[in-house]
């Protein structure tokens, strides 16, 4: 792995960690929602499928080890896999991959479509995991309706907006890197 890729992947992974932590260390009034999805999509857009998903893997790995980098309680530790919402973190990995794969590094439209693809994958994996955990781990009776009302409807609008922001910012950045010839 060359030093440039390595350092860039690390930088994005660090940004993901910060995005996860910002809710806690900055006051919630400053950023009233999780900004993590923005950074996940951005990671995919900027680094491409391979290194993008690797950056998210690093983030999840650090969180599972116990470093307090996740956005919601208990913020880290292996126990996190038992939380219904862990699926979204797995989904993030896949999303970064899909976003990087679909984006052609040219147009805003392609960035938007790529992010949309990422969101679909994110929810597919997230909701499946949600259902499985609710059903088999917490042993609560679950229906699809419940899963969707708890894991999809409250978040989708926000995620679409965040996706839009990410697509715009990411595209700007790539455009600029292209024109400076680096």
């Amino acid at each position, binding site marked *: 792995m060359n*030093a440039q890729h*390595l350092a860039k*992947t690390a930088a994005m992974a660090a940004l993901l960690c910060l995005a996860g932590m910002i809710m806690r*260390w900055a006051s919630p009034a400053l950023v009233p929602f999780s900004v993590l999805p923005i950074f996940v999509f951005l990671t995919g857009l900027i680094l491409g499928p391979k290194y993008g998903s690797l950056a998210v893997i*690093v983030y999840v790995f650090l969180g599972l*080890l116990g470093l307090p980098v996740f956005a919601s309680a208990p913020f880290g530790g292996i126990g996190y896999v038992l939380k219904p919402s862990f699926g979204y973190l797995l989904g993030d990995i896949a999303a970064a991959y899909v976003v990087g794969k679909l984006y052609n590094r040219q147009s805003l439209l392609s960035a938007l479509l790529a992010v949309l693809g990422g969101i679909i994958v994110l929810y597919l994996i997230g909701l499946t995991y949600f259902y499985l955990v609710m059903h088999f781990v917490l042993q609560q009776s679950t229906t699809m*309706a*419940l899963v969707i009302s708890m894991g999809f409807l409250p978040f989708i609008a926000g995620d679409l907006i965040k996706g839009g922001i990410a697509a715009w910012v990411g595209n700007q950045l790539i455009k600029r890197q292209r024109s400076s010839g680096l």
Partner: protein
Amino acid sequence: MLERGLYHPGESTLHQLDPRLKIGSLVILGLLMTTVNWGGLLCLTGGLLIMLGYSPLPIKAFQSVIKAGVVLGLFYTLIMGWHWEEGWFFWKGYWSMAGMLQGLMMSWRILLVFLLTRMFSAFTLPSEQGIGIAFFLAPFYRITPKAADFALLITLTLRFIPLLLEEAALLYKARLAKGNLTGQWIGKIKDLAALLLPLLRIALRRAEELAENLVARGYVSGSYRVLGTKEWESKDSWGVVILALWSIGALIIEFVL
């Protein structure tokens, strides 16, 4: 705001322990805290309180952690205490004692994990955290050289976190130096969003520069080795013993008694 450091500079025993031991304890204790039930939690809490008593960290450092823990705890207790039947009609339900207790336990866990991680980051520099983690990845190097790269990636990531925090703080300063932030809530968010692009740009550029600097100071990709900055001392061995006794104790209380 962003400059508020997690690290608490000092020379206490907790600072001086080997990072490998610290990472190990973090993983093991974190695992226990998220899996055991009442008895085990009690034991873990006791141990943690003793450790807190010995740590030189002022109570003030825990303020925000405890606040967040209590708020989340309340939230969980309420959510898990409210039981409703299948379907969309979550307002048709009742309060269940069992659920409340579960919620309470969840909150307790959260608070414990909070305290543990807070202490961990107060006494362990990010670079040390990286060293600790990289050490545990070392056995995998033999299986694939990718593991070495992954270990390096982890240490770099941890190195970047404070670095980027500084950059963010600087950007914020530069932004302030150019004019006031608008007072309104919406305006504030807009202003922060406008900083996102420069932040990313700077992060990527810092990454490029970091790569250059790493190469310039002798890093070679693929053949990464862990640079322990501390030597294993007797107090580290004692630490291992205490950790082992403590976690076995918690498990015994949980499953045997």
